[in-house]
């Protein structure tokens, strides 16, 4: 009885090692592991479905990379996260690859009757926002501050973990209004109505992308980034409602 068990255990162990080695050895066309901001879910998947994506809040992904997550490329919705990782030497030189704008979405049924951003102040509303550490959460605070509406934060009923969670709560009619990117609003346009955030109050939203230092497939990672920056990449982003890469600020 024991011998059979022993051989089984050894076989198991061997199997595990082979798997580990395989993943370490760079293979030319092996799919990359791309950690990307939640708002990029649809556009990245349609742009390049061959890669393995892990979409989530940029800050959560940053923490995972900080804790050694096996990513090849990291695309964040705010320079803060990529720059922090760059300073820590965990990602190489980040580059801005697109921009976005914020929008306030309300369920089609519009239970709270929100027509403009200023209605948030004058009417009772169940406002759903992303947490302060999430890029879109930070941008939301900027918008409200620029419009002198920070008092509206008292009406927040939930701080969600990423922008898709905010979108979901509004699309399902649970919340009365929520701040998301215009691109997210477009994805659920049949379930929500968009209330424009005035241009003068828009925050400076810059998406940055970088190769992860520990990546075992840097060449492929860089190729991916180049493809995102290429005309094909930029058109895909534009079609999804993202903005052109803004010139570096004066």
């Amino acid at each position, binding site marked *: 009885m024991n011998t059979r068990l022993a051989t089984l255990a050894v076989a198991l162990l061997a199997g595990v090692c082979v798997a580990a080695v395989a993943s370490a050895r760079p293979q030319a066309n092996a799919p990359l592991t791309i950690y990307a901001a939640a708002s990029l879910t649809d556009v990245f998947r349609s742009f390049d479905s061959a890669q393995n994506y892990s979409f989530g809040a940029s800050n959560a992904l940053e923490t995972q990379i900080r804790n050694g997550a096996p990513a090849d490329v990291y695309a964040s919705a705010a320079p803060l996260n990529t720059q922090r990782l760059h300073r820590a030497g965990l990602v190489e030189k980040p580059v801005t690859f697109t921009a976005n704008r914020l929008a306030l979405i309300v369920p089609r049924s519009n239970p709270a009757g929100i027509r*403009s951003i*200023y209605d948030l102040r004058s009417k009772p509303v169940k406002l759903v926002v992303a947490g302060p550490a999430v890029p879109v959460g930070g941008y939301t605070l900027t918008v409200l*501050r*620029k*419009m*002198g*509406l*920070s*008092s509206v934060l008292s009406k927040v009923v939930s701080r969600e973990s990423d922008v898709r969670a905010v979108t979901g709560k509004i699309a399902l009619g649970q919340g009365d209004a929520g701040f998301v990117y215009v691109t997210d609003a477009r994805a659920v346009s049949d379930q929500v109505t968009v209330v*424009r955030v*005035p*241009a*003068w*109050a*828009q925050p*400076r939203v810059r998406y940055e992308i970088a190769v992860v230092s520990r990546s075992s497939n840097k060449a492929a990672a860089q190729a991916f980034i180049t493809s995102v920056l290429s005309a094909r990449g930029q058109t895909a982003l534009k079609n999804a409602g993202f903005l052109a890469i*803004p*010139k570096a*600020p*004066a």
Partner: protein
Amino acid sequence: MSLPDGEATASESAVWIAGAFCSSTASGVALAGIHVRDAKAATENDLAYANFGLATSYLVADFYSRSLEAAKLEASTRPALRRGRAAATLHARELTALLTGAGDTPATAEDFTFEWPVPTFATAASIRRTGTAVLRASLGAYQQAAATLTEPTYRVLFASLSASVAQQVGTFTTAGAPAEPFPLALDLETASAALEAFLG
């Protein structure tokens, strides 16, 4: 800031414009003197107007530039347009300083993509119409700000901005056109809605 060369032209509107112009330069100069020292007392609402003012200043500056390029107005108006653009740019710089002083990170021209309806600069009439509309809206907001902001230095700044913009409105009202009633103070929401179309 050098004084303009004061070309006096015979046409009546020119005189009318020149008159409008002098006071704006004067106010422009006075403007520079006001430095905002104590910004901490500024409330969010104060900063909201400042942000709005900043955006409209860039918009107005851009409008003047395009008007100059379109060259649809009488040559005599060119100096006024240039002075208007200079004033707008100055306003933008002032508001940027104000916001930075308040610990804010103000937007820059690059943050805005101005979307003027196609025919805007096609004819002199539409340039005047758009110009008047844009200036009246920003003037309305500035007056509201001058009257209601909490921080005294902001009120003073917006008062002078109002004066400066008021003159510029004159730039586009041709003599003989029915004098429109002086624009009323507009709250931020209405002003913002009015300019939203152009701010892209």
